[in-house]
């Protein structure tokens, strides 16, 4: 009997189907991987399993008994303990205080610090991390050690099912091997581990079985030892491209580079990133989630301090000392989260659109209303933004129309370089197509677009070229003849010939 099984789980977010009657089950004494590309539904599945989100329909069975977890606390109490990539440690408390938070050993009503420290040392030693000092404040620990403490905290609750969601992302090779040895010992006690990782070699090395997800559906469960990587990749790829992308015009014989980046580094997120972005080109940034694509866009927009490397725009050096300086050189960033970074939600459509160009619209610091109205009206018409009026509050528009405003406010600046962070995430198909059209129009009119998307179809369908990133490096550049799912997925999983990786 499986210890934990999910049957026909469905989950929608607005118009987007994240899971569509997906199922999988995990046996006792098994390490079970969940695999899939971006948006395949594996993260949603994990969140439902451990009570972070409720499912719309379907059943979860724990040791033969149907369960619903109203909160992470409820799941933990029943022995389903997650470790997430976003850490859940309290930074200003020590390692020992974090491990025993809310279940501190007491003596005479007071916290028994001595025994808390000793038990922490013993726990860390038992789990194979004896080098971590229980008295250190978590804020002072390196990221890798924090991740180990997080795992130790989860294991100290003696879970039936331990869920590791990208929990090894900050660990180096030796630490991972060591952790795997500890976890294999744990499995041999009859416990189960559900493992999600973007590193294919870890899945091969560590897991017994794997369930592959695609477009919210489980495509199949395989024995890891008896399956080829190419077979797994094929399962993850799935359906054919739909004809939703604008035609790709031929590239000019002589490319004119607009942005050239040499050895851009912001350790550890970005390592020696070099590439050219040409005039009139849409350059895709691909790879699995969180491989440094977002960090590359933010550092090019000047958000990160202490980057090294050289960035040139139109041949002249671009200093990355803040968004204002980069904006002055005619670049724009469509940020990751339109609600917190892209838009000022309580302000009107008009005010949001005018925000980047207020000085140009003003005389003696007073904004000329008529000009502001013109500018906003033009953008609303150009992008067919559906809003009751330009004075409507942006927060009340639909997600797709909000995103149009977030893009439109940069069109006003007549930027030459657009850095786009997953601009079609969470919006409906119709609006997506309008945004694709708009991007191609911008490129045809000479603008250059560096386009990060978590949807590999967009990279393939829309881009002129693509850079594949893995763990902070550009591991492969895919030209027009290589822009297909096989190349993209293989490169995203780090399955490239070693000579393709720049030294």
């Amino acid at each position, binding site marked *: 009997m499986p210890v934990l099984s999910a049957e026909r789980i469905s989950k929608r977010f607005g118009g987007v189907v994240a899971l569509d009657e997906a199922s999988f089950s995990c046996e006792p004494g098994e390490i079970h991987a969940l695999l899939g590309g971006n948006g395949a539904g594996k993260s949603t599945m994990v969140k439902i399993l451990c009570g972070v989100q409720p499912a719309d329909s379907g059943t979860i069975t724990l040791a033969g008994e149907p369960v619903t977890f109203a909160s992470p606390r409820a799941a933990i109490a029943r022995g389903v303990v997650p470790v997430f990539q976003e850490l859940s440690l309290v*930074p200003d408390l020590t390692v020992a205080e974090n491990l025993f938070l809310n*279940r501190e050993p007491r003596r005479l009503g007071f916290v028994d610090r001595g025994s808390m420290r000793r038990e922490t040392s013993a726990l860390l030693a038992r789990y194979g991390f004896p080098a971590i000092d229980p008295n250190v404040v978590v804020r002072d620990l390196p990221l890798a050690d924090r991740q180990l403490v997080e795992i130790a905290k989860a294991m100290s609750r003696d879970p039936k099912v331990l869920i590791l969601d990208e929990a090894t992302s900050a660990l180096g090779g030796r630490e991972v091997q060591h952790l795997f040895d500890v976890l294999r010992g744990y499995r041999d006690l009859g416990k189960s581990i559900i493992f999600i990782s973007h590193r294919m070699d870890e899945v091969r090395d560590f897991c017994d079985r794997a369930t592959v997800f695609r477009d919210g559906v489980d495509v199949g469960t395989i024995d890891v030892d008896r399956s080829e990587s190419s077979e797994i990749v094929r399962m993850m790829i799935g359906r054919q491209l739909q004809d939703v992308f604008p035609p790709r015009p031929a590239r000019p014989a002589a490319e004119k580079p607009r942005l050239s980046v040499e050895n851009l580094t912001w350790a550890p997120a970005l390592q020696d990133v070099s590439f050219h972005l040409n005039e009139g080109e849409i350059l895709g940034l691909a790879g699995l989630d969180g491989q440094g694509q977002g960090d590359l866009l933010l550092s090019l927009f000047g958000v990160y301090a202490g980057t090294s490397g050289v960035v040139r725009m139109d041949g002249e050096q671009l200093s990355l000392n803040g968004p204002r300086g980069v904006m002055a050189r005619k670049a724009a960033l469509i940020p990751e989260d339109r609600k917190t970074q892209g838009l000022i939600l309580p302000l009107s459509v008009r005010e949001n659109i005018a925000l980047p160009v207020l000085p140009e619209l003003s005389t003696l610091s007073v904004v000329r209303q008529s000009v502001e109205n013109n500018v906003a009206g033009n953008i609303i018409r150009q992008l067919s933004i559906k809003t009751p009026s330009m004075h409507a509050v942006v927060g009340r528009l639909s997600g797709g129309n909000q995103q149009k405003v977030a893009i439109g406010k940069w069109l006003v600046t007549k930027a030459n370089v657009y850095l786009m962070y997953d601009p079609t995430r969470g919006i409906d198909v119709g609006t997506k197509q309008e945004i694709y059209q708009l991007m191609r129009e911008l490129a045809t009119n000479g603008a250059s677009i560096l386009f990060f998307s978590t949807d590999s179809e967009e990279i393939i369908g829309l881009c002129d070229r693509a850079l594949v990133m893995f763990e902070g490096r550009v591991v492969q550049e895919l030209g027009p003849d290589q822009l297909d799912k096989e190349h993209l997925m293989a490169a995203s999983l780090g399955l490239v010939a070693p000579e393709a990786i720049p030294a």
Partner: protein
Amino acid sequence: MAAADAAVQSTYRGASTRPFVVRNARVILAYAILIVLLLVYWQKAPQFTAREWRSISNQGMTLTIASLGQLLAVATGGIDLSVGSMVALSNCIIASMGDPENPDRSLALGIVAALAAGAFGGFCNGVLIAYGRLQPIIVTLASGYIFAGIALRVQPNPGGSVPFQRADLLTGLQWDKVPRSLFVLIALLVFWALFKRTALCTRIYAIGSNEGAAYMSGIDVVRTKIWTYTLTGFFAALAGVFLTAQTASGDANAGLVYSLNSIAAVVLGGASLAGGVGTFVGAIAGAYTLMLIPSVLFFFDFYKQRPLSQELYKGLILLAAVSAGALGVWRIRNRLERL
């Protein structure tokens, strides 16, 4: 055991506890400022007697007690603007309940009533903040007006009846040498040492440091916050008791300065208004620094000519200390996170 701990400690690689001086830099800075002020005072004062000590010790004590309460609210990432009004209310309750016919009994009853009012007022703040999900700054601003209004009703004009000889028990000299308020300070330090070892204290700092992680670790955030503001109100009322002993009268306007001064004191002592950081030991230095600034300035001619400018110097010292503590922000490499 300590030896064994030390032996284990030496085997840890990589991150170890940072040196004491680094970990407590803000507190050490606060004491450095305080010691400089004390040295100047000692140099300039015409004679430095036990009475001088007593007056310094008494002047800072009300603020020290109020700051202990404020520190707890600040450690959760909150703030309590009603501390000053609660000091005033406590002061007025004790003075108005005083009965010259029966001084001891009325004084004891008055103190009990004041402390109960403090705890209850703080409890109400906590309920509104924790259950009502209202912002602490606005809840306590409103409740502060309410407490101040009640204080005026209880004691419309300065006065009331407080027995001097009893007040001397807290504010006088022991063995003609040692200010008795020092014993109050020692009692508070003992309380703090014990409180730091309670689970409640860990929870308070956990919530201030990362409320989400605290919640995910099973901490009852609502109850912890209610407890916190209850304690804050209690210590504000206790500060009112000491103020009563010092002034031997009730005045609805005498306590109001302690709201902002207690915030300044805990921040001077190294607390972060973002929560999760700060100690009572630091707040003591902050409180006495704020109280000493006017006394020290009084010895300087440039100040005597414009005695109203003491607030100016308080402000400059506070800004300098806070700026020194904020230098670390330049180590953050994501400019968005520096905002």
